[in-house]
């Protein structure tokens, strides 16, 4: 991405600084069955769940960071802590120099959080009314407000929707208007919790292009959680993987592919349906569908295998790809391996 050169050094001007941040919840176990339910009226058993276990992280101005992790890994808890919705059990965090959970108004005017669909917009009123309220509570100067609102609305192509009651809009339309509402006061930091969940491909693309534009133009620091690798590939240079409340990986997207894949996917289109032995000499056949074969080839062997394939008269077409990001990340989630050696937490490569 072209703005990586202009990115400031995160260690000199961190916008987000997190040290040893931990959040524990006390949950009550309710055993199954009526008798047990009655017993639990008198004697409740509870246990402590560690949603976040002493996380360290630094994010520089203008960075676009993806928080990845399986459900329940602590991503949303992390965003809630950074936006001051909840208070941590241990540790410290500073966002734009403020402790988020103190909730000073000076801090709250400088960031935005988009979490879920029914967030900031008034359900029964047109979005324009919610925007007007934001103008007041964020003390946005009127001419600036009009300029920013028009720009955002046009970027997302939702100008004709702002006068329609929000409840009549589709999921994607609502999400776009939520984003407009969140960016009206030109926040320096933007937290997004699964911004593209449930949206169709076109809406996802629009939102990607929009976020890229906003981030590049205004050098907004963005942190988003998502389950869609398309979001990550389209937007984020830096990926932080959280599992079981711990940071498992912190680095660039390219590095994930590099570090955690051992092979590439080679697809061959052949003249005829091949015998297993014919293709096995190139690599491990994972899928044979008619004359099309999908092979896993060790990355180290690609250079020697490819010439052979190209010389093979029976091969009509060949493509070489990285293992899909989804697979790599799924593998990463499953693994319980510790943070890669030599990769201190919080250091962006």
């Amino acid at each position, binding site marked *: 991405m072209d703005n990586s050169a202009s990115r400031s050094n995160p260690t000199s001007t961190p916008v987000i600084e997190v040290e040893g941040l931990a959040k524990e*919840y006390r949950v009550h176990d309710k055993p199954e069955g009526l008798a047990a339910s009655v017993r639990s009226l008198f004697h409740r058993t509870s246990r402590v769940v560690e949603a976040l276990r002493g996380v360290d992280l630094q994010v520089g101005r203008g960075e676009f960071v993806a928080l990845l992790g399986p459900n329940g890994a602590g991503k*949303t808890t992390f965003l*809630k802590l950074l*936006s*001051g*919705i*909840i*208070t941590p059990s241990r540790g410290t965090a500073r966002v734009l120099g403020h402790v988020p959970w103190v*909730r000073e*108004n000076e801090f*709250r*005017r400088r960031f*935005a*959080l988009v*979490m*879920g669909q*029914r*967030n*900031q917009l*008034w359900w*029964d*009123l047109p979005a324009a*009314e*919610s925007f*007007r*309220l934001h103008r*007041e*509570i*964020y*003390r946005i100067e009127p001419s600036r407000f009009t300029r920013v609102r028009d720009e955002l609305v046009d970027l997302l192509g939702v100008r004709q929707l702002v006068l329609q*009651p929000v409840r009549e809009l589709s999921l994607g339309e609502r999400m776009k208007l939520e984003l407009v509402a969140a960016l009206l006061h030109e926040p320096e930091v933007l937290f997004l919790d699964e911004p593209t969940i449930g949206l169709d491909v076109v809406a996802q693309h629009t939102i990607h292009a929009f976020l890229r534009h906003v981030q590049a133009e205004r050098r907004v620091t963005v942190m988003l959680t998502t389950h869609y690798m398309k979001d990550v590939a389209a937007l984020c240079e830096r990926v932080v993987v959280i599992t079981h409340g711990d940071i498992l990986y912190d680095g660039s997207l390219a590095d994930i592919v590099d570090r955690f894949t051992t092979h590439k996917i080679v697809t061959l289109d052949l003249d005829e349906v091949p015998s297993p032995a014919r293709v096995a000499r190139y690599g491990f056949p994972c899928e044979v569908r008619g004359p099309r074969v999908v092979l896993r080839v060790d990355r180290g062997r690609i250079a020697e295998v490819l010439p052979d394939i190209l010389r093979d008269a029976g091969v009509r077409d060949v493509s070489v790809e990285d293992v899909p990001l989804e697979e790599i990340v799924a593998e990463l989630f499953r693994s319980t391996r510790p943070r890669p050696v030599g990769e201190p937490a919080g250091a962006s490569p």
Partner: protein
Amino acid sequence: MSGRSVTLEPDRHVAPPRLLEGLRVWCTMLAICLEERLVYRGDFLLGTAMRFLPIVTQIFLWTAVFSATSRADIAGYTRDDVVAYYLLTMLTRAFSSMPGLAGGIARSIRDGSIKKFLVQPVDFIGFLLAARVAHKLVYYAVAIVPFAAVFLLCRGYFPPPPDAPTVLVFLASLVLAFLLGFFMEATLGMLGFWVLEVSSIVFGYMLVQYLLSGHMFPIDMLAGIPTGMPGVSVADLVQWLPFGYTAYFPAAVWLGKIEGQELFRALAVEVGWVVVMALACRAAWHRGTRRYGAFGG
């Protein structure tokens, strides 16, 4: 505030615009809440009509009580007084009752929609107040017609109207009744930070409220009931509690049941309760949001 508030000059300079700005934000919130309420005007029409039903039962009940006794008055209330009293408490409760307030707060805590107010630079209690004022204004705009009709029809039950100062005190007591009702219910709603469901607490509160506010019967009828303490009746105790100020007090002021020194003492007690409940509400909000886990997304 930190660096600049060393001298007093900048502070004095800063304070008024802040207040004005706060007021402007609040007025915008009020305007938007009004618009939102107007979406549900049909529901309001129906709700208003329903409000008049219980009073009819009360009037029938008391008519039966009076026809069964040879006394002209019960605890100082004639039959006409009782009808006038109930109509006035109905008016008072149009100010002090807060349908759905506590439950709504608890629900937004439970489903997580309250987090918007933690993230945005806006005061939740101020917002709730704006929403409730809007709610009431729309209600009055609709209800003024049936209210006027009923009071006109029943004007024969009322004593001659009180003097101007009493009318002023009456109006003040209505506004205070609104604030008191608001802060009591909002505080109950804040309990949602500690317990999952506040509806049974609210039900208990409503029950006590019904008994002790004068909604069920005039509180001074309790004057004959001893508490065990020499010279202190139940009515004497109840007048120190907040409930009576949400129904009985304004009605009693209009009917001239409380006068002079007593009136000012009662007004002071009411103002005191409004302050106490406003502080309690804010304290509950502060403590609650600190322990808030933001469950439910």
